[in-house]
């Protein structure tokens, strides 16, 4: 295998890295740096998407370090699209002081996403996680004029590095027990060795590391401050791209790598394995996320706690196991990511026009900007699981798969918990919409009582994302069938 062939197979990642470097150079040279850099970055992402489309259908290198399959290609495209929208959102926020650096970080984080998605080998996964994580820590702390940004970055970094340590310990223990780092090889070896306590420790530590990444309770404490304090594009990227890639990787690890030690999370049929661990994480996330979100008065913090709850719902898909569960979980997290980017887009506009993102800043948004209010309604209702939006189909898919999976409805407890969580969540999403549609403009927003002058680009982005959410709800087959077809047959 020559380096040229390797480069061809890794062309999307290479394109994005090159774009990052070009953006850095452009920012040194160009007059209106922000616009030029954003244009270059967006162009680079589009080229990377084209490069993904030109990849071969199936290829595995170095024992799983770089895997090209329909699933990885699909999710590379999804991650690149999410990065694209994040770049569009950087135009919405007040211009960061060093736009070139910020965009380069976004692009490097995207490389991390692609490495994560395209890998089925533990070491490469860890490298991807670190690349993603380090970029995100800096992105979260990027606004040096805001103390909350520094708080967000520091908390995210402290939590993140600790959980990276957990992940690394876990990975090394797994290696010790199974003697391999490629997921397929681990699975084969685990099937033959006897179950040891050390294996259990290794699995739990790895899962803990990933639970941090997906903001599952009780490893979610970084999320509220990161979502609220970080600059809007950073928060949007953390909420969307990072989550999607983490779920893809987590799914591959547990469903491919740890397949022999699955266990069962059925109500009267609990068997030790990773399944009950994920079920516990899911249950805790749903309960804690929804209950604490009830008490919030800041929209971004509310979105953070709702993110915890949605991580819980998605984990139900993994607990169900097999192809259907994986596919349902991936569909749900994709739809969720699109919705969150859109929601953060609206939050960014409101923040710029009224100086904050509490409920009072959103009051009367319907009269100031009906389009943004309508789009926010679409996003909030999709998160609540109201038809005909994408979130509703996602939940139906997840819950039906979960109920189908266990014999004799053994996962009914988890499904019921998920439904109760959705019910509770409707209340706080309606509170946001109440502020937007029902409340008259409050004092904080009163000065901006005239029609909000928002950028055409922001409006277009948010409208496009809202339309995507509606479309995915009315015609979910476009995405669902693709994901189901892409998920490998032998899970």
């Amino acid at each position: 295998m020559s380096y040229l062939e390797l480069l061809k197979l890794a062309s999307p990642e290479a394109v994005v890295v090159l774009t990052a470097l070009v953006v850095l150079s452009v920012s040194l040279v160009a007059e209106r740096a922000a616009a030029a850099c954003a244009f270059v970055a967006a162009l680079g992402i589009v080229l990377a998407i084209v490069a993904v489309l030109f990849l071969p259908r199936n290829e595995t290198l170095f024992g799983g370090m770089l895997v090209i399959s329909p699933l990885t290609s699909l999710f590379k495209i999804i991650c690149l699209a999410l990065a694209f929208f994040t770049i569009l959102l950087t135009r919405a926020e007040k211009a960061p002081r060093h736009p070139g650096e910020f965009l380069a970080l976004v692009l490097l984080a995207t490389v991390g996403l692609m490495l994560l998605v395209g890998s089925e080998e533990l070491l490469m996964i860890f490298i991807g996680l670190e690349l993603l994580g380090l970029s995100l820590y800096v992105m979260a702390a990027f606004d040096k004029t805001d103390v909350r940004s520094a708080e967000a970055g520091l908390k995210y970094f402290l939590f993140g590095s600790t959980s990276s340590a957990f992940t690394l310990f876990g990975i090394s223990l797994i290696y010790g027990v199974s003697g391999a780092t490629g997921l397929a090889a681990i699975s084969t070896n685990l099937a033959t060795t006897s179950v040891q306590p050390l294996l259990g420790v290794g699995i739990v530590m790895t899962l803990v590391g990933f639970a941090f990444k997906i903001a599952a309770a009780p490893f979610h404490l970084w999320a509220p401050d990161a979502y609220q304090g970080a600059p809007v594009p950073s928060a949007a990227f953390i909420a969307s791209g990072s989550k999607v890639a983490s779920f893809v990787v987590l799914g591959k690890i547990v469903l491919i790598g740890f397949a022999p030690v699955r266990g069962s999370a059925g109500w009267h049929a609990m068997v030790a394995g990773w399944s009950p661990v994920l079920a516990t994480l899911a249950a805790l996330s749903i309960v804690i996320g929804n209950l604490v979100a009830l008490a919030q008065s800041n929209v971004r913090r509310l979105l953070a706690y709702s993110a915890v709850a949605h991580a819980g719902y998605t984990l139900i898909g993994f607990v169900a196991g097999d192809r259907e569960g994986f596919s349902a979980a991936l569909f749900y997290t994709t739809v969720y990511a699109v919705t969150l980017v859109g929601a953060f887009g609206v939050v960014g506009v409101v923040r710029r026009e009224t100086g904050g993102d509490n409920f009072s800043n959103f009051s009367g948004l319907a009269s100031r900007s009906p389009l943004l209010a309508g789009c926010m309604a679409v996003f909030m209702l999709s998160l609540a699981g109201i038809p005909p939006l994408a979130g509703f189909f996602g939940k139906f898919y997840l819950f039906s798969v979960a109920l189908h999976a266990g014999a004799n409805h053994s996962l009914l407890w988890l499904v019921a918990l998920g439904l109760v969580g959705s019910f509770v969540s409707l209340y706080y999403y309606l509170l946001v919409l109440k502020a937007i549609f029902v409340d008259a403009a409050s004092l904080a927003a009163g000065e901006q009582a005239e029609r909000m002058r928002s950028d055409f680009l922001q409006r277009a982005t948010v409208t496009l994302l809202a339309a995507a959410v509606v479309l995915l709800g009315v015609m979910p087959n476009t995405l669902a069938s693709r994901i189901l077809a892409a998920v490998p047959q032998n899970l």
Partner: protein
Amino acid sequence: MIAWTIYLTFGGAVLLLLLPRAFARWIALLATMAGLALGTVVFVSTPIADLAHFATIVRVPWVPALGMNYHLALDGVSLTMVLVTGISAVSTVLFSWDVEHRQNEFFFWLLLVVAGCYGVFLSADLFLLFVFYELVIVPKYFLIAIFGSTNKEYGAMKLTLYSFFGGMFVFVGILVAYVNGGSLDLNQLSQFEFSPQLQSWAFPVLFLGFAVLAGIWPLHTWAPTGHAAAPTAGSMLLAGIVMKLGSYAGLRVAMNLFPQGFQMWSKWIAVLAVIGIVYAAAVALRQCDLKFVIGYSSVSHMGFVLLGLATANALGVSGAVLQMFSHGVIAALLFAVAGRMIYRRTHTRELDALSGMNLSHAMPFAAFTFVVATAASMGIPGFSGFAAEITILIGAWKTYPIAVWIAGAGIVLVAAFTLRALKLSFFGEKAVQGEVTTVTTLSREEFNPITIPEKIGACMLMLTTLAVGVYPKLLLDRIMPAVETMRFLK
């Protein structure tokens, strides 16, 4: 062709968002009238024999991997409900002709509710039915919270959360049916034999979920609060049609899919229904706000529907469907008078205050309409309420004779609170405020006259209830064959 009722209503809803405010009510009127016209044309032109089975209209694959199809079907029961939705929708738009603020949003949410109702009544796929069922929930919130009156934010949130709460149980029931039956198609599932043990717990979960929306006692408290808080059009539609979504779906889904479960639990449904009839009537007797009286009367009438369903014989269930139609019209009429005709002009709904205004002289048309409406509500022969209730009671006599005795007592209570409300609101002679007794006779010139759209809407509703009351065979001919082929009767 009847599927176009859904598409035209949705299309109208989206269209009026994009056009200037002045057009909103006209587009809404056109869309609802088109829906009514389609319903009437299909009603008149379809041979009765074709309506006996749940015949497919449209069946297009939606998500093949999960077995979801866009599947619409029609039978006599569905057609009756589509017709009453059309009538109620047109009258709702007519009675909202004078909405002043944010007309686009008002009619958008209204048309969404109507379209969702059409969808539920025509759905033959479990997932599709659930989509339309849940779709109606959020527009209700905005209609009440933005455009409502008394305690609107609390009423809106309570109503919405209760509906979603019921939807939760429905979701579980639907998932269980889907996972065990392997299909989402209602026709296929109604052939499937679920195990009796499964049915024993799945049926109550599913039926209870639907019955929350139908106002079953004791999960009914959202209805009076919500309907009193809603704007007139909202109350007309919510009490008239949306509550029927619950009972219709209970019939179409719960009773057909889990017939043995239904047999096990039908007695308890009858018990709760009868309690609801009497309890709601008794509470209505004590209300001071006219809209609350009507709200509780809606719960009481829905109790009759649930009683009819619980009888498990063709006559009782047909009576229940007829009562769904009849109450849809009557509730619309009652709320129209209380909300639009009275409240908009006198700005009060307190019975004590109204009794001092001698409204029968000041608003003779409104008084006439309210007399007709209360007569129909009480079950006076000649109006649709009598035809429906007598059919239900005859059906109930065969299965639960005691229920007939108790419901009979309930009917007396219904007459009591209805007559009290009628007398105090329109024919009162003195108002008691504190220690002072005042008598005022307000003349006709004090109030804006009843507008033409209001008159048209009122006449439409009154004629409907009269026509069905005088000739119920018109509807029963189409309802009974459809009910007789339903599975739970065999």
